[in-house]
């Protein structure tokens, strides 16, 4: 173990690499890689890592990057990649395939605005566009959380009760390029946490199967239902992976949601990724002053932690949801999902959406204070509020 000052990208590159290396005793590791700002350093890190049983394939596009990882995964290897923004958009067809083929591929995504206009800064629209695909999704706020969650994602994705790919996202620049003290676990410790991958449906000459051919509706629909069942097991398996993580690394990687002050909060602020960091400080200050206010950070977006969210907002009267993303014609994506989670359970709850820091704008403490003042003062919900970038 070493403690180093590294960027979010470095932390992600390190985690992907040591996870791949941890499979050297089994079928090895591979990934297709392709650069795009602001994730490029991740694939550069992976490309220079001294693997013992791995090949990093520098392909011609994100579409092929995921395709190579799919091929490697089908052959039973640990596979991963990283991308961002338009790279994710270009990759979409094969992202979908990885999910429906039930391949435990891990992708680190640096959330960046989808163009046009050309904008390289933080916005979650690129990965939230994948929300209906069979991928587990995590949103992280710090370098350490990125590293820990990436390692955890492999163990979760590869569990035979799950077998779904997982995405670990962080905000462009705010996390990807900010250096912070980070614990980098050594290889033997990672080896202890990540068992060798055994993909039950990998391609085998001894038992030739055809994957992805024509399937009639009854069976095809039952495959969708199997995905739903696997998604339904994520909470339970995640809890196990988290406990094992604490055992091995002596550090809590976090769960689906993280709460602060929700035991008695009347006002709850819901946020994700680096916005949660800013909100947390303000909530702490206000609680010290005696206010009944709380924070819920949604870390796992897929499957959506409905139950945990309802539990965390048990004492709340009003909820403010900060979204750094926008679904055209509707509003924030976290807001939509949260609304649906409360529907029929908490019709008394006032749930207000604030669109903040889209396309990389800063979400300042002053803006968060403004949102809190607004939600405290309001007696009814309105359409999502666009918070002007200051």
């Amino acid at each position, binding site marked *: 173990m070493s403690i180093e000052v590294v960027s979010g990208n470095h932390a992600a590159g390190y985690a992907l690499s040591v996870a791949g290396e941890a499979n050297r005793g089994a079928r090895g590791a591979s990934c297709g890689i392709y650069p795009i700002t602001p994730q490029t350093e991740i694939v550069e890190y992976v490309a220079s890592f001294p693997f013992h049983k791995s090949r990093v394939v*520098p392909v011609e596009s994100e579409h092929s990057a995921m395709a190579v990882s799919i*091929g490697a995964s089908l*052959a039973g*290897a640990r596979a991963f990649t990283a991308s961002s923004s338009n790279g994710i958009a270009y990759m979409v067809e094969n992202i979908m*395939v990885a999910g429906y083929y039930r391949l435990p591929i891990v992708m680190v995504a640096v959330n960046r605005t989808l163009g046009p206009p050309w904008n390289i800064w933080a916005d979650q629209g690129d990965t939230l566009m994948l929300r209906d695909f069979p991928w587990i999704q995590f949103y992280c706020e710090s370098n350490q959380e990125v590293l820990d969650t990436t390692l955890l994602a492999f163990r979760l994705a590869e569990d035979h009760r799950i077998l779904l790919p997982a995405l670990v996202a962080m905000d462009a620049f705010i996390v990807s390029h900010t250096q912070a003290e980070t614990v980098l676990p050594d290889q033997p410790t990672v080896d202890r946490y990540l068992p060798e991958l055994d993909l039950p449906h990998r391609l085998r000459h001894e038992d030739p199967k*055809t994957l*992805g*051919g024509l*399937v009639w509706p009854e069976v095809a629909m039952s495959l969708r239902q199997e995905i739903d069942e696997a998604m339904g097991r994520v909470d339970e398996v995640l809890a196990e992976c988290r406990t094992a993580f604490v055992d091995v690394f002596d550090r809590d990687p976090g769960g689906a949601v993280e709460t602060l002050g929700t035991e008695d909060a009347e006002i709850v602020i819901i946020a994700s990724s680096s916005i949660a960091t800013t909100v947390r400080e303000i909530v702490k200050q206000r609680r010290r002053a005696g206010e009944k206010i709380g924070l819920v950070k949604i870390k796992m977006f897929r499957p959506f932690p409905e139950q945990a969210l309802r539990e965390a907002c048990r004492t709340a009267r009003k909820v403010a949801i900060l979204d750094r993303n926008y679904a055209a014609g509707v509003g924030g994506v976290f807001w939509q999902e949260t609304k649906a989670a409360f529907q029929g359970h908490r019709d008394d709850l006032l749930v207000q959406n604030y669109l903040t820091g889209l396309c990389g704008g800063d979400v300042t403490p002053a803006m968060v204070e403004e949102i809190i003042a607004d939600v405290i003062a309001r007696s009814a919900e309105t359409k999502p509020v666009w918070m002007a970038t200051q």
Partner: protein
Amino acid sequence: MPTLEGVPPIPCTEECLLRPGNTNCGGCGMGVGLTMLGRALAEAGDTCTLAIPACCGIVTAGAFPTTSYGVPTVATTFASAAAVAAGIATIRDLNEERGQVICWAGDGGTYDIGIATLSAAAERNENIIYICYDNEIYGNTGGQRSSATPPGARTTTTPGGKSEDKKDIMAIMAAHQIPYAATLSIAHPEDFARKLRTAFSISGTRFLLMHSPCPTGWKSEPADSVELVRLAVASGLFSLYEVWNGRAWRINVEPDWTDPMEYFKRQRRFRDGEIDLQATERASRDRFQRLEVLAREFPYKTKEG
């Protein structure tokens, strides 16, 4: 554990790459090509994994829970066969396992949507065999043009006959300087089998282009399929040759310059008045002459000299 694999309906051996009872149209060239591929692998004591993009070749598998393929097979997205195969081959090589990794792709997945992926795999010299069965049309979607469709051919998107020439995919692949590129015709089975053996004996990217009769798209009689591709070779419309490392050429069959009208008139995709016979013959002779120059100036030298 997810249940997404098709299972062969009866036990099969490695000799049986394509099992009886597939869903191809009668007279489809693919069935012959796949059978020859299976035999050549068995004779070489080799086996394979197939990566098949969207095309008639994946429909060939039939419907779950059965499959016509007796080897591990994966359906890839339309543009991705070469990249998925590269991933599979990478892990095979890391684990020092046997068996070829073979892409079996249509002309649409090769000349059109998959060309960037294929070009990149070839440039990296991925250890795969890429076989394009060229039926000169998008068969699976009901017969639209591709950049492999020959001039004059009617398709649903070239209702008056295609006006552009066929893309020279062999020249493109040879320009990548891959270890081996060759053309195949099911009307020349010995040449076909020998080229497969050659491909199996080399590593790196190997590209094979098979002229694949398609009665449905060509509007021809199923019984005419082999005869049609024989006529294509004889009349100089489709040449049989090999290229090593993009630097050495060998012609395998000399055309006897049979009147190409014999070929055209048996396919209702070609209409009288929509074929410029003179231009076609000139183009064929030109193409062949260039090949002759290459084969003379840059001949492939066997070990015997």
